[in-house]
């Protein structure tokens, strides 16, 4: 009975809004101010970093918490399996995959760096470029068994990049303006050095996401496979 009443109230409210009329007032303001005042060609980047920059700081914090939580939960199993020296995969990767991994890894890192450096000019940005770089590391992790990632370096890069993001926001306060205010000049449109602190923030976010996702993938992949007698003799023959 209560359900019927609630349905009636909701439907009566929704049918009072006229259908098919443009209500995007805030979006129109963003699209108008983004090339003129900020000098940024990609409106999505301008919204994510500048108009809604505080939400991006929260997103980066959530990613950091997820990566730290996963590392903390699986830390004991990773330690045990590092002592027993397991294999990351149960079969050695073929020669084609190994040579292709060595050849493609710098190209993938170059593509990812291009995507997050040009985040304010072309579609993409920090998060996409960081995940592309982590995919390159995943290729090497699956191709070579003896490839190891030093977790101290990954943790330092992640923490310093996150601190750079917060530090750029605090520099706005130190210079007498708001938190995360754009204090560098806007520059001309479609230039690489345009848009104030937006490319700097996206470079920091790109490094941070790449380091985080690489750490997560290495933690998940190094749980180890249950080596029983059959696969052990087979891999010894293959190697």
């Amino acid at each position, binding site marked *: 009975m209560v359900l019927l009443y609630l349905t009636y109230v909701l439907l009566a409210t929704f049918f009072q809004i006229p259908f098919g009329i443009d209500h995007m007032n805030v979006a129109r303001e963003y699209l108008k101010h983004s090339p003129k005042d900020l000098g940024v060609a990609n409106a999505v980047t301008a919204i994510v970093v500048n108009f809604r920059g505080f939400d991006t700081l929260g997103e980066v914090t959530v990613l950091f918490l997820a990566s730290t939580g996963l590392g903390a939960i699986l830390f004991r199993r990773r330690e045990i399996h590092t002592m027993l020296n397991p294999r990351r995969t149960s079969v050695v990767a073929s020669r084609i995959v190994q040579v292709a991994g060595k050849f493609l890894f710098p190209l993938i890192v170059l593509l990812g760096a291009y995507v997050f450096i040009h985040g304010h000019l072309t579609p*993409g940005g920090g998060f*996409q470029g960081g995940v592309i770089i982590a995919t390159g590391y995943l290729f090497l992790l699956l191709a070579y068994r003896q490839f190891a990632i030093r977790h101290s370096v990954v943790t330092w890069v992640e923490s310093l990049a996150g601190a750079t993001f917060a530090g750029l926001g605090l520099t706005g306060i130190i210079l007498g303006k708001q938190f995360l205010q754009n204090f560098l000049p806007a520059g001309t449109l479609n230039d690489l050095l345009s848009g104030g602190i937006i490319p700097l923030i996206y470079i920091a976010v790109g490094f941070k996401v790449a380091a985080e996702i690489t750490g997560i993938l290495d933690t998940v992949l190094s749980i180890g496979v249950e080596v029983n007698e059959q696969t052990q003799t087979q891999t010894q023959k293959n190697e």
Partner: protein
Amino acid sequence: MTALFIIVITIGSLVLIGAAIFAVHKRDLLLATVATSVISLVLSVFYFVLQAPDVALTEAAIGVALTTIIFIVTIKNTKRFED
């Protein structure tokens, strides 16, 4: 609404629904994971055709590469056939 738009959306919708039914129906979890990554791929093409390239890049990088590898490693560490 150009012809390419209509063709891509129609064919993509059929592949999407087929892959989703396949992913739910199969008992071999590895095949279900591959079907999920096919769904992410078709969805990424949809986002590009609907003029949202940032979302398409994100969906292609995360949906196809990242969640697929995490699911495969999870299936390797647990059991492969559900019952």
